[in-house]
């Protein structure tokens, strides 16, 4: 486990082949591989956790379903990580692909998305711009402070998650969050198809009378992948990465976080509130696209 954690930094966001292999190797995939049978079947090469290459029969492989972390496990962060997101406002043109990907992955209905793309205008003189907004996963989260039962909590890897099996639905966190990041299941949620049990890391299935929000897709992070919104953005406006490893990626390019934040004069939304967000914004200057108003009737 220690080796794996140390290896994480190097491996982060390299080609998905390695990631796939290491995931298979650490799984019960090769439990039955030691049996020696006549070699008639097709062989598959696999890499084990200690780094040796083994060859196994294809019939010995089992389909594995990724069981997400249990509510208890999901309270601990992924060791040695501190996740951050960077949003390049100069690249957003309100394509809304991030919202779509997020809704699909979390099985949300369009009336209560985790992501909003807001039309912003800082003052009368400056041009309007589009601002994608998710949960900021604050380091001093007002929502976690006020929760009476610890249903929403802060993890060592900077994530703020919600355990909807513990939530009592008092909505104090929603009143406390200055960024309107949270949504409530006012009625019965749409039936959701899932083959695994509930985990705060997937936020699926939803429950009536509980609070939900953007979770930074920890089930993807556990597989060394980035959240769905990052890969969905057609303009590479969204970066995701690890502050400790000092690297972020938007799916196509991987850059040094500290350099990006310094050179592009990054800011955090309403820094003065003291919430210490983990989402940085790069100002909407030198834009890729001119600003265009949203079509009529489009929800934000």
């Amino acid at each position, binding site marked *: 486990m220690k080796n794996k954690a140390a290896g994480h930094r190097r491996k982060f966001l390299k080609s998905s082949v390695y990631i796939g292999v290491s995931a298979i190797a650490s799984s019960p995939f090769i439990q039955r591989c030691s049996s020696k049978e006549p070699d008639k079947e097709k062989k598959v090469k696999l890499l084990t956790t200690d780094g040796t290459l083994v060859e196994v029969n294809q019939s010995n492989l089992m389909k594995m379903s990724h069981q997400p972390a249990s509510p208890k496990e999901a309270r601990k962060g992924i060791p040695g990580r501190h996740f951050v997101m960077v949003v390049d406002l100069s690249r957003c043109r309100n394509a809304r692909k991030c919202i779509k990907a997020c809704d699909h992955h979390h099985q949300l209905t369009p009336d209560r998305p985790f992501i909003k793309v807001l039309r912003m205008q800082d003052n009368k003189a400056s041009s309007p711009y589009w601002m994608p907004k998710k949960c900021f996963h604050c380091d001093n989260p007002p929502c976690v402070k006020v929760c*009476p039962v610890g*249903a929403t909590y802060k993890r060592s890897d900077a994530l703020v998650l919600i355990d909807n099996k513990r939530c009592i639905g008092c909505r104090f966190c929603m009143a406390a969050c200055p960024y309107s990041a949270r949504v409530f299941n*006012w009625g019965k949620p749409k039936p959701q198809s899932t083959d695994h049990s509930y985990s705060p890391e997937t936020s699926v299935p939803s429950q009536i009378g509980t609070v939900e929000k953007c979770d930074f897709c920890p089930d993807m992070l556990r597989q060394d992948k980035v959240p769905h919104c990052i890969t969905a953005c057609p303009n590479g406006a969204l970066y995701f990465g690890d502050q400790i490893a000092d690297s972020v990626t938007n799916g196509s390019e991987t850059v040094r976080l500290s350099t990006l934040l310094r050179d592009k004069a990054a800011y955090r939304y309403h820094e003065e509130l003291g919430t210490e967000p983990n989402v940085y914004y790069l100002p909407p200057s030198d834009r890729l696209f001119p600003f265009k108003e949203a079509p009529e009737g489009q929800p934000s």
Partner: protein
Amino acid sequence: MDLDQKSTRTLNYFVPQMVTISKSGILQLSVLVLFILGGFYALYIQIVDGHIVTGMRDNVVWGLYIANFIFFIGISYAGALISGILHLLRVEWRHPIIRIAEIITIISTIIGPAYILLCMGRLDRLHHLALYGRIQSPIIWDVLAISTYLIGSIIFLYLATIRDLAALRDYPFKSKWRHTLYKFFAVNFNGNSKQNRYLERGLDIMSAIIIPLAVLVHSVLAWIFGMTLRPGWHSTIFAPYFVVAAVFSGTGVLIIALWVFRKYYHLESYITKIHFNYLGIILMILGALYAYFTFSEYLTSWYGSETWEMEVLYKLFDPNGYWWWFFFAAIVGVVVPILVILIPQFRSINSITAVSVIAVFALWVKRYLIIIPTLETPLLPLQDMRPEYIHYTPTAIEWLLTFAGVAMFCFLFFLFSKFLPIVSVVKGEEGTNYAELRKTVMQRIIKRT
């Protein structure tokens, strides 16, 4: 227990009303029960369909329920502060009104928190508060403070009632269960000097405890709002502001209750104009204090004119927004009671009660205005297309449950009056000691000068 003549007369006056119920009484009671049943029906729908049946949505996450919660906890101040302070100050005229004040406290401290339960999305997980409670959360402070306050108020009422319970135990009731009941609660009290001494000490201690406890309860309640980073809420003035508003509305409700019982049970000889005058003057002083806090709060945020704060203020002062409600809550509800009580010619039992009604209504509206406009003003621009997400309108379900709460308040009051005389029958003996003490102190002062 030996009763003096006056107490016997009072007891004989009240007992027939306790054991019988008139035809109009039954009618009034069934109206109350109808409202309560309506509330249960609304609750059933809310539990089955979820909070989608309320007007609350993702921006306005709290609505009528929380306004009612603050309101009921506010009027619970009647008993705690009024009876506690009047007891400690040995005010003579308190005796006929103190029982009513204490009953208001207990009933409203039971009904108030019920609104928090109605607001909760998962009532079935109430036990999580005990299982996973976090002391960092102001909600847990509230749970602890209110439950302590309720227990304290019950003890206070009980201690103040023991003498009456003993008198009722010795009264020749026809029904046996009443005997058993009063005998159990009278705990062998027979009025000897030792028991009286202990009882008085207990009452003194409880009234000394209940006053800071009441202040704490409403401060903690204010902090639920004050601790959040929201315009109109995030203010240091909030705790004392809530406390003053609470005593103001509590006194108002006490005056209304006195008027109702005076009419209903014909207590003209017990509850007199003096009580209304004195309570009216207390109401006037509290109204002035409350006006001062209101002025200070809004002047400060207006003068500072921070964008976010101003957005809320604009909504309150916008004639198409909340202006007329705000005008009623902050100006009419304060100025009218003060003027009417201030001018002796206007002062009568009916006028004092009428302005109390205005003040209590104004205070309810004020609680609504504290919650809704702030929640309708999030920091990020509201760009939702759906009107119900932008503007909060309470639904029939929420109104049904609100009326059910008021009906429950009246119903429980009625129930109390069938078990206990609502005016204390047996007077304690504490007055004599203090009168003597005062006499000796005065003599010493006179000697010195």
